């Protein structure tokens, strides 16, 4: 008996030694709740799939908090190996050359095959530099899509609108007639500005939407943008649109309660909506477009966040990071992530796997995000690159709130947004010297 315990403790010691020999890497992320559990699952699966490396995921709060924590840690030389950075923070981290190792270089240096064409087109270049080299690894990629209450639309005798003209003249009046609030949306800058530009193939900023220079000017104060927002305000006054403040959840809740018939949110909201077991059937489709602007609507681009490999780490740790990225982008892991969360699979292979498995036969709405990201592309559909963009979004949110509460006019609001955004952009350009 005694001998047995000695043997087993020896075995334990050996095992723990083996564990120490593994290369440890850390991953800071902003995925809370159910998303965080899936992140932990991916990390556990990776650790169990091989015995050279161990990854530890750490939840650091919101996107903004994670970025700030990562920056502070970098300045103190304590940065994690992998940091998750959201779309609006991309310019900050990509602008700081030397803070990260471009993911494309990391993978090829560590012998991992990399071909940017393996990634679906709406995902490919958002986190790339001007030459098309991928800097950040797209991770939780989503796109704004239009969810609708199938029962509400059936009761009103209308279909999900394809264009804003159709919404205005046909869909909204019928829904009001049937006792519903026709429309809500959860993120004005993302849905009604950034992806509005992409959907209509309109330029969002100079310098090829900010990708090819730092002296960028925003092009938000355009006739198309003001036309859209003038209509949005009219819809609000006519009861065709309801606004519940800048918070995401406050705008989603009335849709879940069945009061609002059409809600625009993220393709990544799909998993959460499925889990909630709503008292009505829901589905989703593409964002509408204005026929008066274009008759050939284009794709949207990704939102969400990507993973950056931080610089200043040893070769062994970088090898571990590369191995993890390889694991993460494998079709099986991507499909699992897509299935559990609703975020889009980032590679064509993962998309094919989901199709083969019959995922979209079971949940047709789960495919809308990736389909919309794969629509025809244009010169303005790969994304944007602007510094201090989180503040520019805050400025937009503030001015949109003021439009919708009658504190300012559409004309004045867009002038303010243009002035303040350009001021922020020129300030950001000065931080890059």
């Amino acid at each position, binding site marked *: 008996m005694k001998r047995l315990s000695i043997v087993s403790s020896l075995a334990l010691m050996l095992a723990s030694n083996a564990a120490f020999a593994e290369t440890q890497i850390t991953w800071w992320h902003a995925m809370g709740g159910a998303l965080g559990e899936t992140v932990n699952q991916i990390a556990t699966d990776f650790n169990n799939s091989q015995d050279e490396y161990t990854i530890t995921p750490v939840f650091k709060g*919101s996107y*903004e*908090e994670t*970025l*700030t924590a990562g*920056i502070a840690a*970098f*300045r103190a030389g304590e940065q994690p190996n992998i940091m998750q950075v959201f779309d609006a923070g991309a310019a*900050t*981290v990509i*602008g*700081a*050359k*030397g*803070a990260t190792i471009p993911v494309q270089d990391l993978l090829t240096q560590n012998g991992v095959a990399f071909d940017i064409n393996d990634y679906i087109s709406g995902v490919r270049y958002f986190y790339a530099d001007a030459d098309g080299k991928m800097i950040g690894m797209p991770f939780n990629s989503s796109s704004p899509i239009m969810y609708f209450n199938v029962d509400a639309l059936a009761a009103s005798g209308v279909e999900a609108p394809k264009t804003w003209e159709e919404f205005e003249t046909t869909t909204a009046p019928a829904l009001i007639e049937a006792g519903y609030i026709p429309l809500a949306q959860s993120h004005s800058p993302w849905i009604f500005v950034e992806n509005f530009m992409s959907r209509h193939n309109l330029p969002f900023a100079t310098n090829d939407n900010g990708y090819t220079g730092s002296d960028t000017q925003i092009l938000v104060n355009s006739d198309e943008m003001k036309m859209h927002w003038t209509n949005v305000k009219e819809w609000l006054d006519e009861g065709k649109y309801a*606004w*519940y*403040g*800048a*918070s*995401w*959840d*406050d705008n989603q*809740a*009335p849709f879940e*309660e069945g009061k609002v018939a059409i809600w625009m949110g993220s393709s990544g909201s799909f998993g959460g909506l499925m889990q909630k077991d709503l008292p009505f059937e829901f589905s989703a489709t593409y964002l509408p477009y204005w026929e008066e602007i274009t008759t050939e609507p284009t794709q949207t681009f990704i939102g969400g966040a990507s993973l950056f490999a931080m610089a200043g780490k040893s070769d062994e740790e970088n090898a571990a990071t590369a191995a993890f990225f390889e694991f993460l982008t494998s079709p099986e892991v991507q499909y699992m992530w897509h299935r559990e969360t609703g975020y889009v699979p980032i590679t064509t292979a993962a998309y094919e796997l989901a199709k083969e498995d019959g995922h979209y036969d079971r949940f047709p709405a789960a495919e809308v995000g990736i389909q919309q990201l794969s629509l025809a592309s244009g010169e303005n559909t790969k994304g944007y690159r602007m510094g*201090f963009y*989180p*503040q520019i979004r*805050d*400025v937009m*949110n*503030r*001015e*949109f*709130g*003021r439009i*919708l*509460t009658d*504190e300012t006019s559409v004309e004045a609001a867009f002038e*303010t947004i243009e002035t*303040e955004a350009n*001021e*922020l952009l020129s*300030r950001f350009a*000065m*931080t*890059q*010297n």
Partner: protein
Amino acid sequence: MKRAGFSDRWLPVLFLLPQLTIIVIFFYWPAAHAVRSSFFLQDPFGFGETFVGIKNYTMLLDSASYLRAAWFTVIFVTLVTFLSLAIALLLAVKADKVIRGAKTYRTLLMWVYAVAPPVAGVIGLVLFDQSWGPIKDFVAQFGWDFRLGVNYFDTAFTLVVMSVWKQLPVNFIFFLSGLQSIPRSVREAALIDNRSAAGRFWDVTFPLLAPTGFFLLIINITYALFDTFGIFDTTFKGEPGNNPMTLVYKVYLDGFRGNDLGGSSAQSVILMVLVLALTIFQFRMVERRIHYT
């Protein structure tokens, strides 16, 4: 008489050293750093920076949103300070007269003190929520379409109410102990001179409470300026939007959310100057006008 003193002139310095070290490391060094940063525009990761002189400051003075926040801060601080002092004084005067169950009554008035500001914010969200808040339902009966997070005034209203509620117990405790330290003989003498309770309060009790009141005034102004941050942060649910905000919240937004180190340092320096002015005012007033007996 022999004065007690140190024989070695370095000994007192040695004793003071730990305290001085802490002050220098945690207060002066960061403050100096902030002043320096406020004249630069800096890459958040620390790779590059440009000297811009006083541009970070002039930008603030030109910025409509900063002036809007400054104006809101003035109104907010005035309202919160006045209301929390006035209500607490009223409660303390009334509690001072309670004879039966005095302790229970006072404890009930004080327990809110244990609530942290972010929690107060969450309680405010629950009470005032735009879709299911009970207070929203209540005021709807009077035709007030209350919409927290949508309407600027309604949001400001909620922030003021929650900030006042959170601060009441502190003021209450101080006022009550202030009242209880007024000598019995003075009160009895006043009772003979003046039959009106209100008259006695304004002529005798209120002036005797002045030291406490002045101290609380300073405490409340700094509370409303700085410590209400948690209430704002939880009420906004991560999206400031067009909601009213104080200058301290703006420092956080630009510095921590936006990574604009130069701009937010300039804002911090402005706040430092404000606090400095407040402190100087406090000491001057203490020396000249207010007599602590």
